[in-house]
């Protein structure tokens, strides 16, 4: 019998550490003197910030005293300390107003994860062998300093590269400033799901390189082109609050919601009408709706202003997009297009959204511009019930995309000496064809600030583990989700459990030890000093009705979780950049010829794992996926007719092959997907990411082509075609039963 099985049945055969029942202090771990003044059993609530997706929701954290096993001066013992026990939305925070999504709820498991790195590590074996030894912080920082000072002094072409997730606020400022203090350094931001296409489109159409904030609570008609706005897209909690309000929050009124997408997403499942559309045809569909509205004189073409003028043929009424002309190409019936267009025009305020796969085709930018023009035509831009843009300064575009960076390293065009990694796992989350792994192999020294070993940090030579978010000073400036100006800030909710250090503090110390340019550019000793300085500047700029000086302003901001403006400001869109000629209609192009690769491949963000960065949390592995109820695994969604044609039954192991690779996962047969589309959640398929996620399922990103979105260069992750075949028996763990309330197998009763 396995030890684990024995444990589960009755007695744990184990030492009796910390077991009060035995009553003898000699059999117990020693107890350290508490470092905080705590009353057992009493909870305090502290503000914090959720960092698990770009929305930037505010948290309220319940902190209670508890006994933690910690190491002090090399000795293991018990320490009574404040422990975060439960996360809730911060009721005062303008983005999420007291509510929280399932991923936010699971954030606790990041702090208490058994595989969290407990202190700095230095590689001992071959790179990637997983062999590390513990070192002190002083040694670790000194190692990093020595590699970086070599870089600053060397006359070679060697450079510093810093690869991170897209960042905001003071954290981004510190990283950017640090990197910039090295000549020819490369700051690269990467996330598989990013909003660069939408930002480019909004910059062109409306003059704001920002994702939209949707005032859905006041809308009467919402059309979404593929955006999973209730699940994973943009600011899901803020959008969900608006959705609830739109549906049933206004007595006597109920808005309508239509979702156009080839596979029913979790959001599409809540639509009044889910209408499938050919992949990549979303822009044409939007223009067809616009054509009907203009042709039937519901709105004048000129109402779309500059956003309309960006679309070729707009002022002539988009006659090429008459429903009958394009219905077959886009897969939507002409009478449906006409009806939806009439309904939207007649039910003001009407608003359109686009996101996810619809902007991840090669014509994604065109699709987004088309939807922007439709919005402008409907009159929803900058108006209640429509889209508005938060009064936030838009982020500067990062210097290099990860794809071009990897290409430069691989070709030798950029000789990177030192690579710093923070909050990014590109070996997992970037397509294999980008060659990120090979690029890392070429770099002599890699240091990671990550809290876990993952596919990318496993290749590091030095690991300087960051605190978990709940143990850190946090600040954020959300870019969407509220019409108010929001600057969040929160002190740590609890002391660190392990021998970790806040990444910005480590960078500041490295800069200080390096001296020279780096030290000059980063004068603060700690991260919270830098945040406080930014709040002093904020106070000067904004003033305050309730705080009499910068000191009090800072104190109050920490108590409530940030500062936000009292009023919402609806920024009027200005005419965007007149970027040359209007963007032509472009049909999407797909990688893989249709005869060999008959199906469109559609990866989608998982409600639980997001982009795979949360697959290591056991609550997320065991929570059933909302539409499929799958637990602890990955799956491939197939239409029933397609499954029958290919002799694939539910649960069969299928091989999905693209021109760039193949993977295997069990089949899930579902009516909510077009017959020529295959869909797969992103998030599983980790080769090395803690005990809960390693070796589980398959990673759809690994077989994607490197096709890009025209006009932005970002990855067109919906542009790959695949073929499909059954290869055996798979394992599908479902929590739910039949898909249907009236399963056919019960009908004979």
């Amino acid at each position, binding site marked *: 019998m396995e030890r684990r099985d*024995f*444990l*589960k049945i*009755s*007695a*744990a*055969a*184990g*030492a*009796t*550490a*910390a*077991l*009060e*029942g*035995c*009553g*003898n*202090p*000699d059999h*117990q*771990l*020693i*107890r*350290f*003197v*508490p470092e905080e003044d*705590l*009353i*057992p*059993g*009493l909870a305090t609530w502290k503000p914090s910030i959720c960092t698990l997706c770009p929305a930037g929701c505010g948290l309220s954290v319940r902190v209670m005293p508890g006994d933690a*096993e910690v190491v*002090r*001066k090399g000795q*293991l*013992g018990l320490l*009574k300390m404040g422990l975060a026990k439960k996360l809730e939305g911060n009721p005062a925070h303008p983005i999420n107003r007291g509510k929280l999504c399932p991923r936010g709820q699971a954030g606790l498991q990041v702090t208490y994860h*058994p595989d969290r790195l407990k202190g700095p590590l230095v590689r001992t074996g071959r790179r990637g062998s997983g062999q590390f030894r513990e070192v002190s912080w002083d040694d670790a920082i000194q190692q990093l300093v020595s590699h970086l000072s070599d870089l600053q002094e060397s006359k070679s072409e060697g450079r510093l590269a810093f690869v991170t997730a897209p960042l905001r606020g003071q954290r981004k400022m510190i990283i950017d400033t640090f990197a910039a203090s090295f000549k020819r350094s490369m700051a690269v931001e990467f996330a598989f799901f990013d909003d660069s296409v939408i930002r480019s489109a909004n910059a062109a159409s409306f003059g704001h390189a920002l994702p939209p904030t949707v005032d859905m609570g006041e809308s009467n008609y919402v059309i979404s082109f593929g955006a999973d706005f209730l699940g994973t897209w943009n600011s899901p909690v803020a959008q969900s609050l608006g959705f609830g309000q739109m549906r049933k929050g206004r007595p006597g009124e109920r808005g309508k919601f239509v979702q156009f997408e080839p596979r029913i997403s979790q959001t599409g499942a809540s639509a009044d009408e889910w209408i499938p559309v050919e992949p990549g045809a979303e822009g044409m569909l939007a223009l067809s709706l616009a054509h009907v509205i203009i042709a039937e004189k519901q709105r004048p073409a000129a109402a779309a202003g500059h956003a309309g003028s960006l679309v070729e043929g707009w002022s002539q009424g988009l006659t090429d997009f008459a429903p009958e002309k394009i219905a077959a190409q886009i897969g939507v019936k002409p009478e449906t297009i006409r009806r939806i267009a009439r309904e939207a025009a007649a039910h003001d305020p009407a608003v359109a959204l686009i996101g996810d796969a619809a902007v991840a085709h090669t014509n994604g930018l065109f699709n987004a511009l088309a939807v922007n023009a439709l919005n402008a035509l409907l009159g929803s831009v900058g108006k209640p019930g429509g889209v508005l843009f938060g009064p936030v300064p838009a982020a500067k575009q990062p210097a290099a995309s990860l794809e071009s960076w990897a290409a430069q390293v691989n070709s030798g065009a950029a000789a990177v000496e030192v690579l710093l990694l923070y909050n990014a796992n590109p070996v997992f989350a970037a397509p294999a064809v980008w060659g990120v792994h090979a690029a890392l192999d070429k770099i002599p020294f890699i240091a990671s600030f990550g809290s876990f070993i993952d596919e990318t940090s496993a290749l590091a030579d030095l690991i300087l583990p960051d605190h978990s978010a709940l143990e850190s000073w946090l600040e954020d400036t959300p870019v969407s989700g509220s019409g108010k100006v929001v600057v969040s800030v929160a002190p740590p909710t609890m002391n660190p459990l392990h021998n970790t250090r806040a990444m910005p503090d480590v960078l500041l110390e490295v800069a200080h030890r390096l001296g020279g340019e780096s030290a000059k550019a980063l004068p603060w000793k700690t991260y919270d000093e830098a945040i406080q300085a930014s709040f002093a500047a904020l106070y000067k700029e904004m003033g305050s009705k309730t705080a009499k000086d910068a000191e009090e302003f800072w104190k109050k901001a920490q108590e409530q979780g940030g500062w936000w403006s009292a009023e919402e400001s609806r920024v009027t869109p200005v005419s965007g950049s007149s970027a040359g000629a209007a963007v032509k209609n472009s049909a999407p192009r797909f990688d893989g010829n249709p005869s060999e690769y008959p199906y469109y491949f559609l990866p989608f963000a998982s409600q639980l794992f997001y982009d795979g960065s949360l697959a290591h949390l056991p609550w997320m592995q065991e929570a059933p996926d909302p539409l499929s109820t799958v637990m602890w695994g990955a799956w491939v969604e197939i239409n029933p007719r397609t499954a029958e044609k290919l002799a694939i039954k539910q649960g069969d192991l299928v091989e999905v092959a693209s021109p760039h690779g193949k993977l295997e996962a069990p089949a899930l047969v579902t009516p909510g997907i077009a017959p020529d589309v295959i869909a797969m959640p992103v998030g599983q398929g980790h080769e090395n990411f803690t005990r809960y996620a390693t070796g589980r399922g398959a990673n759809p990103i690994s077989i994607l082509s490197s096709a890009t979105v025209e006009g932005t260069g970002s990855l067109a992750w919906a542009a790959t075609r695949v073929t499909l075949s059954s290869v055996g028996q798979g394992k599908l763990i479902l929590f739910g039963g039949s898909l249907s309330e009236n399963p056919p197998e019960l009908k004979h009763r």
Partner: protein
Amino acid sequence: MVVLGWVLKEKGLPAQRADGSPQAASSDVFTPAHPTIADAIREFFDLRPKPVQPIAYTHKVHLGNGMQCTDCHVGVDQGPDARIPSVNFCMTCHQVIATDKPEIRKLAAYRARGEDIPWQRVYGFEPSAHVKFNHAPHIRAGVDCSVCHGDMRQQTVAERKVDHTMGFCIACHQQKNAPLDCVTCHF
């Protein structure tokens, strides 16, 4: 029978891990399972060994000197638990009071080592009773500490003088018209 015999022989984790490093003082999982069969049997019969206190703290002396229960047992009127103070709290007085006594020397030694005193629980419910006792409503209702804990002014080293059987609690609840619903305490 073979399984039973095997089960009874299981003693504990080996002293060394596979790579030769010493076993950590505690196991790597948290579970309500009992550490040994013997422990499970003891809990079933509510046989608790007499706790061995690291320092011979005497309530008699401190209460005799005019201290109140809540001077040390902070929080008993605010929440479920009565705090046992940390060594720092004791030393606020004992860095000057009775510093020559051997027990006080032990106290100072703990503080010097950065260790807190490992007080052993005297009153408490077995985990399998699933009781969530909350001090605060009782204190607010005017229940004196001695009702449940005995007259501490007569005690030197703390001992369990009152048996907290369910009957003990129910009798008082019935008398005082306090809630008798099971989920009042068991949840």
